[in-house]
């Protein structure tokens, strides 16, 4: 198991390293020159060269990448002379846009990002699986039709629309909830929870459907398996047959999908929800950085997303090994 984990982590690290190099090469090879944007209208070639130099853009791209990697592990000083800024390890660079430390920016947004992703993921996983299981058990009955209908509704309603509707009813019309916003949980747990209810709901509506449908179909498959029949032949109660024997097997493909979804959510794929409710997450940061052609931030958010997805997948593999003894020794 430990060997397996080490191997998985090593390969995860390799993936992240490759992603970082490729992202670096792509973004820094882009035609839009940050120096031109930074120096405005009355720009002379000399000035551009100076900016290039201060940003380190005049160096060979691989040297730049090496600087970047070294900076991450050991910190570095960016620019020279009076403009020099020291960026402590782990250094992801300094924003072109506002000279802020990119690592600090990301780290600052991480709690909001995690709160949104984790809360929503737990709910859509649990509720989605429960609904799917109920639909499978009562196949063709009312519960099934309701679950499938709800799934269809969720899939076909865009988040920006459901966000508006939710906000209109719960906040504006009925005033049951305060306007959605992010309050750190350390400051005010109740406020944190209330502020996130609607963003969670919007995300859950959109994603839960996949879990319902997937659970329903895998559970139906598993219920046709011989070992479920064996469980019934033992005289186990219906509940035990479903919750223990069926669910345990049906959950494996769901864990896989969940890992990828969760990784992507942390990595900023909840961008629409963040924007619709004004939650300061990583997704928003990524979009702003693209609009500003703020290369260090683009680079950092991409890397962050890749890391989140890769780590989530390692986690999935570990969980998989716990669920399914057959893959433990592979």
């Amino acid at each position: 198991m430990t060997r397996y984990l080490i191997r998985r982590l090593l390969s995860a690290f390799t993936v992240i390293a490759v992603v970082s190099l490729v992202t670096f090469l792509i973004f820094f090879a882009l035609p839009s020159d940050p120096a031109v944007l930074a120096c405005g209208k009355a720009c002379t070639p000399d000035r551009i060269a100076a900016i290039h130099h201060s940003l380190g853009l005049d160096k060979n791209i691989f040297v730049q990448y090496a600087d970047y990697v070294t900076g991450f592990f050991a910190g570095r000083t960016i620019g020279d002379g009076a403009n020099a800024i020291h960026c402590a390890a782990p250094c992801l660079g300094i924003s072109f846009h506002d000279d802020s430390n990119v690592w600090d920016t990301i780290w600052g947004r991480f709690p909001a990002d995690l709160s949104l992703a984790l809360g929503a993921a737990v709910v859509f996983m649990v509720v989605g699986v429960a609904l799917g299981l109920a639909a499978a058990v009562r196949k063709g009955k009312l519960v099934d039709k309701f679950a499938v209908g709800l799934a269809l509704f969720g899939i076909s309603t865009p988040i920006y629309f459901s966000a508006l509707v939710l906000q209109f009813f719960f906040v504006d019309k009925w005033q049951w909830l305060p306007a959605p916003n992010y309050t750190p949980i350390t400051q005010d747990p109740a406020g944190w929870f209330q502020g996130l209810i609607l963003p969670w709901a919007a995300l859950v509506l959109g994603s839960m459907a996949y879990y319902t449908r997937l659970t329903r179909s895998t559970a139906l498959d598993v219920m046709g398996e011989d070992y479920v029949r064996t469980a019934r032949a033992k005289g186990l109660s219906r509940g035990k047959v479903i919750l223990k024997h069926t669910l345990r097997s049906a959950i494996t493909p769901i864990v896989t999908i969940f890992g990828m979804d969760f990784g992507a959510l942390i990595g900023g794929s909840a961008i629409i929800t963040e924007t619709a409710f004004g939650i300061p997450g990583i997704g928003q940061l990524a979009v702003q950085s693209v609009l500003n052609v703020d290369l260090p931030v683009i680079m950092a958010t991409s890397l962050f997303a890749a890391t989140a997805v890769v780590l989530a997948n390692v986690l999935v593999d570990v969980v998989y090994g716990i669920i399914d003894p057959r893959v433990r020794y592979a």
Partner: protein
Amino acid sequence: MAIELSPQSVDVNPASSFLEVRDLRVHFPTEDGLVKSVDGVSFSLEKGKTLGIVGESGSGKSVTSLSLLGLHKGSRARVSGEVWLDGEELVGMTEAQMRALRGQKVSMIFQDPLSALHPFFTVGSQIAEAYRVHHKASKKEAHERAVEMLKRVGIPQPERRAKDYPHQFSGGMRQRAMIAMSLVCDPELLIADEPTTALDVTVQAQILDLIRDLQEEFGSAVIIITHDLGVVAEISDDILVMYGGRRIEYGSVHDVLKAPEHPYTWGLLQSMPHLGGDVSQRLNPIPGSPPSLINLPSGCAFNPRCAFKDQVADGRCLSERPELLPVLDSDKHIAACHLTGDAKAEIRSASARGTK
């Protein structure tokens, strides 16, 4: 006090045998029509005895056994008839009553032990679970019981093997574990659905020996469902041959295999090669394929594949369903065929001339 001869007879008296099945029908409504998987099957079984149910795929043999415990697939199945087990009628039972019987009084062994055991739980825990369903026992007690059962069915190092998962067992060991699980509550009736089909021949011999030994030890009744006449001959007392969801021949193993009465049973026996048989002799297959359970041929369901239907007058094989009638000079051997005793005797002697 009646040996059931005709599927029509309806008897509301509790049975005298340990297990008595009367006119069991299991019908599944489907989009294509009503699938009559089991259509009027009756048999009886005493404790300590073994019944072999034989037939090809789609003959209804598995559904018959599964429906005894209400384990057949499809909640819309219509089950009728009577199943008397030790004085209790099973067909009308509620799910909860049935559940109390499953694994306790009646237990099952399935064909493929790899798919019949849950891949994610240890063998020991699956056996212990079967015990705890019906006994108030701590986890530790149940585990000890599981180890004891594994030992009883001949698994070496049972303490260690109980902690293994099914995929770590060999095929034969898995089937032993499955048997251990089915016997953990000392059932009075054991139903084995193709218990050795997925196994190698030497392992099959071990498993059949084991089932026989355990039956002697516990005195339970055993129903063994198989397509292999050799397995039935080895282990059974009685044999029930099914075709198209119905009984076509029923009697003691000796009677049925030594003096088969139905052309389908003849066909089954002649179509399989024997270890000491004459290799220059071609196999004598039954032509055609098993019938659809939605549209059984009219008259005798076997008539499209039967070589002797012309020897019955008036085309009765095509128009009239033969009743199960007792064979002369036999206490309980019955068969459903329109051929007269004389006609059969003639066919036999002709066939005997042919093979010699």
